[in-house]
């Protein structure tokens, strides 16, 4: 792929990830968010967060399987977009749903497992977003940086649990995300296992 095509692809993914937010904004201003706009916005931004987290986690296996470095180059952007959507998600919850009532929020976080998991997932994502720049990679050193960023598996899993716990009945999607995450994590653990490395070296 030429450098120019790569740039076009980068731009396409960049704009593509922005589209859900733009669409929600359009629907907000045209009154097209349904009977409960706040609920729709919270659900949609949460949904895009987990979709992007899961997609981002599939990029590394994809790169290795395809033996092509292209997918992994989008990892940071996808991850930061996930963070962008979770920030909107959390802000709506804190400011609109809870009306910034600190007492109610603290109670909610401690008492409701799905909120607890959601909040833990968010808190795990904060340092990852902060250390996403090239400078921070250099400052931490690639090894430590990679170790730190493995936390994204935990964050995504907490996100899936958060989703699973709030659904009233139809748990199809939380289970699908859970299955993809488990597969991706399993694949990476298998890759990291000494046995696998020996086999690959032998082949």
């Amino acid at each position, binding site marked *: 792929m030429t450098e120019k095509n790569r740039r076009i692809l980068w731009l396409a993914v960049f704009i593509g990830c922005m589209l859900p937010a733009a669409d929600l904004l359009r629907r907000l201003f045209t009154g097209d968010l349904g009977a409960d706009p*706040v609920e729709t916005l919270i659900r949609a931004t949460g949904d895009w967060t987990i979709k992007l987290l899961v997609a981002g986690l599939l990029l590394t296996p994809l790169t290795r399987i395809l033996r092509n470095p292209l997918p992994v180059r989008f990892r940071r952007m996808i991850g930061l977009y996930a963070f962008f959507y979770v920030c909107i998600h959390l802000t709506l919850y804190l400011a609109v749903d809870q009306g910034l009532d600190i007492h109610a929020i603290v109670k909610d976080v401690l008492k409701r497992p*799905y909120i607890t998991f959601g909040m833990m997932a968010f808190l795990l994502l904060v340092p990852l977003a902060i250390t996403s720049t090239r400078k921070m990679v250099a400052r931490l050193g690639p090894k430590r940086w990679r170790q730190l960023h493995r936390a994204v598996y935990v964050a995504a899993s907490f996100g899936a649990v958060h989703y699973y716990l*709030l659904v009233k009945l139809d748990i199809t999607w939380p289970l699908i995300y859970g299955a993809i995450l488990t597969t991706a994590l399993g694949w990476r653990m298998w890759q990291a296992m000494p046995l696998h490395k020996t086999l690959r070296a032998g082949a």
Partner: protein
Amino acid sequence: MLIGKKPDIASSEITPKSLWLDRRRFITGAAALGIGVALPREAANAGTLKFTKSPLSTKGEELTSLKDVTGYNNFYEFGTDKSDPAAYAGAMKTRPWTVEISGEVRKPVTLDIEDILKIAPIEERIYRHRCVEAWSMVVPWNGFSLSALINRVEPTSKAKFVEFTSLADSKTMPGLLLPYLDWPYREGLRMDEAMHPLTTLVVGLYGETLKNQNGAPLRLVVPWKYGFKGAKSIVRIRFLERQPATAWNTANPSEFGFYSNVNPEVDHPRWTQAKERRIGDFFRRPTLMFNGYGEQVASLYRGMDLKTFF
């Protein structure tokens, strides 16, 4: 067969809602001026209901728009999304429709919906409607007290509970494929709850016959309980000696109690019930005990621990 079936009235012949509202306003205005205008015995258009205003109506609440009341629904027989019922319930056939009334009654009977409509005068009853999911609406229902029907079939002394069964038609209800609820949908009330005047058999809302997504042609509304207690599209009403198994309670007994009275002090195990978002509002408002109907219904539960019997 649904395909090719011509509607009885061409849509071009149906008076637009704005026009008949004007007509109603004219009649009301004329009445206010003391001009004797005889109201027609039968409604001019199919779908409109003749009703009187009930003194049981909740006052001082702004009505939720017809669009939201008919577009934002939980009716899992048609799917779990709030927009699914409006999108898919049209396929359900609501005529002919009969309701089997059986069990511990002296006069078991199978009633045609047209006869049910004549049991008592149709009233407009404005009630708050609080969903267990912590959102709420204010709906002008049309119907009459369930007690009118109950009195007619003469329950025996053994009748302690009433069970309501909804239609389960796999041909028109795609949601029946979902394994989460044990279909058909069933709900139940204790006899005194069923006899309470606020408990309403609903045949319409906003002065029109019920739309399918709202539980046509006949549903239950119990305003002091969470919305799911109000069974939709009822095909059977059974009087029982023992508390019946109900759909949500069977699916998850720790989360959805048999009573399910609106209670801000008893949280759902996973989310708070202290607040609710009124559809149309941005911020949440406090939820009222018994959904604000405590004065009328609290005595039904005297001496009961509402945390145990949630």
